């Protein structure tokens, strides 16, 4: 098994966190790969929901966008988007929500809106999308983000989605229905909130990754949990399944498209 990339390792680590038959609100990119990998391996009964309205979809190829055709064709049903956010997400039916972000702080609050000031940003980011309400309502949220001093920061420039707010039970006191970020899967391992302070601390490393590497990639003084796990390397089955999925996806996305003329 030629050495797996950190992206592959992140995807596999995230997939392992997904219980069979859990209902997941899937974001595009690595989360989509993680959820479909789980479905193709240990969680065949996992229910994948894409915010475009595809409920219980089973794509054979990873979608490039959240509304790809295959999502509709393989879904148990396609509902209007307003229903995904009201009858499914807001109604508390989503077990796990995946979020990415440009910036994340030590309490798992996320910024996907602006870098710099809102009115005169140095970088205008895509914006919230489904994130604020996914962060608010999903029973658990997993964040998948490659770590760097630019993204894991002491202070985020704009709070697009609430994690644990200022920590120490602030989220619970705010009455947010969902539990908040359960884990942050990044390219050296995993962070998880400290039970009391709710500050993200290093709880697991990929084999070959080091605490130093983690500390170098995090913009705040990273606390290491008392027990530091080592994430088991991908099995052949996991890696083969993921690579086949990615290969099918690359091939499909590269297929020349006939211009409808």
């Amino acid at each position: 098994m030629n050495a797996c990339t950190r992206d592959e390792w992140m995807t596999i680590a995230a997939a392992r966190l997904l219980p069979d038959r859990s209902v997941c609100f899937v974001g595009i990119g690595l989360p989509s790969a993680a959820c479909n990998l789980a479905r193709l391996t240990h969680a065949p009964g996992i229910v994948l929901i894409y915010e475009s309205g595809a409920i219980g979809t089973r794509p054979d190829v990873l979608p490039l966008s959240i509304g790809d055709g295959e999502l509709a064709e393989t879904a148990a049903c396609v509902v209007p988007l307003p229903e995904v956010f009201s009858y499914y997400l807001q109604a508390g039916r989503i077990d796990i929500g995946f979020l990415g972000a440009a910036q994340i702080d030590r309490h798992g609050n996320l910024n996907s809106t602006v870098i710099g000031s809102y009115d005169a940003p140095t970088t205008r980011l895509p914006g919230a999308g489904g994130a604020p309400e996914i962060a608010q309502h999903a029973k658990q949220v997993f964040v998948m983000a490659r770590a760097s001093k630019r993204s894991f920061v002491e202070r985020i420039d704009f709070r697009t989605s609430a994690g644990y707010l200022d920590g120490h039970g602030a989220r619970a006191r705010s009455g947010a229905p969902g539990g908040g970020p359960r884990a942050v899967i990044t390219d050296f391992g995993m962070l998880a909130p400290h039970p009391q302070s709710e500050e993200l601390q290093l709880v697991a490393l990929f084999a070959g990754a080091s605490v130093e590497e983690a500390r170098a990639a995090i913009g705040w003084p990273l606390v290491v949990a008392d027990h530091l796990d080592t994430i088991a390397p991908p099995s052949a089955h996991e890696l083969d399944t993921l690579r086949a999925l990615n290969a099918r996806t690359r091939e499909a996305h590269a297929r020349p498209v006939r211009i409808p003329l």
Partner: protein
Amino acid sequence: MSMLLPLAEAIERHVADGASVALEGFTHLIPFAAGHEIIRQGRRNLHLIRMTPDIIYDQLIGMGCARKLTFSWGGNPGVGSLHRLRDAVEHQWPQPLELDEHSHAGMAAAFCAGAARLPFGMLRGYAGTDLPAHNQNIRRVQCPFTGEMLAAVPALNPDVTILHAQRADRAGNVAIDGIVGAAREAALAAKTLIVTVEEIVDALPPAMNAIVLPHWVVSAVVACPGGAYPSYAHGHYVRDNAFYRQWDAIARERASFLAWMEQHVLGTRDHRAFLAGLQQEAA
């Protein structure tokens, strides 16, 4: 009653400068042809409305058609930023762009309220985010039974909503298959509804529970095969992911963007010519 019109006439007749215009379709059935025609006709000061501004909004903004944008996520899905949108927000090029920014859940509630002609939409949303501090259009309302405070957003009633759909019949009934996003609510919320379609059939069969917009809620139907390209039309053609990736380079610089738009949009009489131009270029 809905009228069967050529695209140019439908835009010319129904889309005025300064109007609020929603071109909806969540990754699927995005009305590119109509967007290009708005650019060809040089519309100005539009208030653009769309949950997920995509390439067509990058083009409308970059060509100076828009003064304001109501949206909830603006990017090139799976690729990266919308460079013309960023240029407008970060550098006021070609002109300043006022933002009315929401979350998907908020905009969905706003479209539903619009379709129901209620003055506001309601959701348990925006909790713990900075969006309300920067958008006085996000307020709160108290439940008269439980006292809970909920988020309230003003209803969205675009002057014009434009959709693309698979087919319509001669009476103007429109059928949509596949991912619909909030397109139907955006359509019913509008004062005027234009729908470009892949094909016109004699009569749509009774649709039972499938999605149909009855002719009497549609202002104009336009026959426009390929009208959603480079997004896709379920059952007709797939999404041109390569085009979405190429757009990132085309739009990154003002010069390359303007040149491309001059050649492919301003320089083409209609959507057929637009598609033919791309086909030649790819050949």
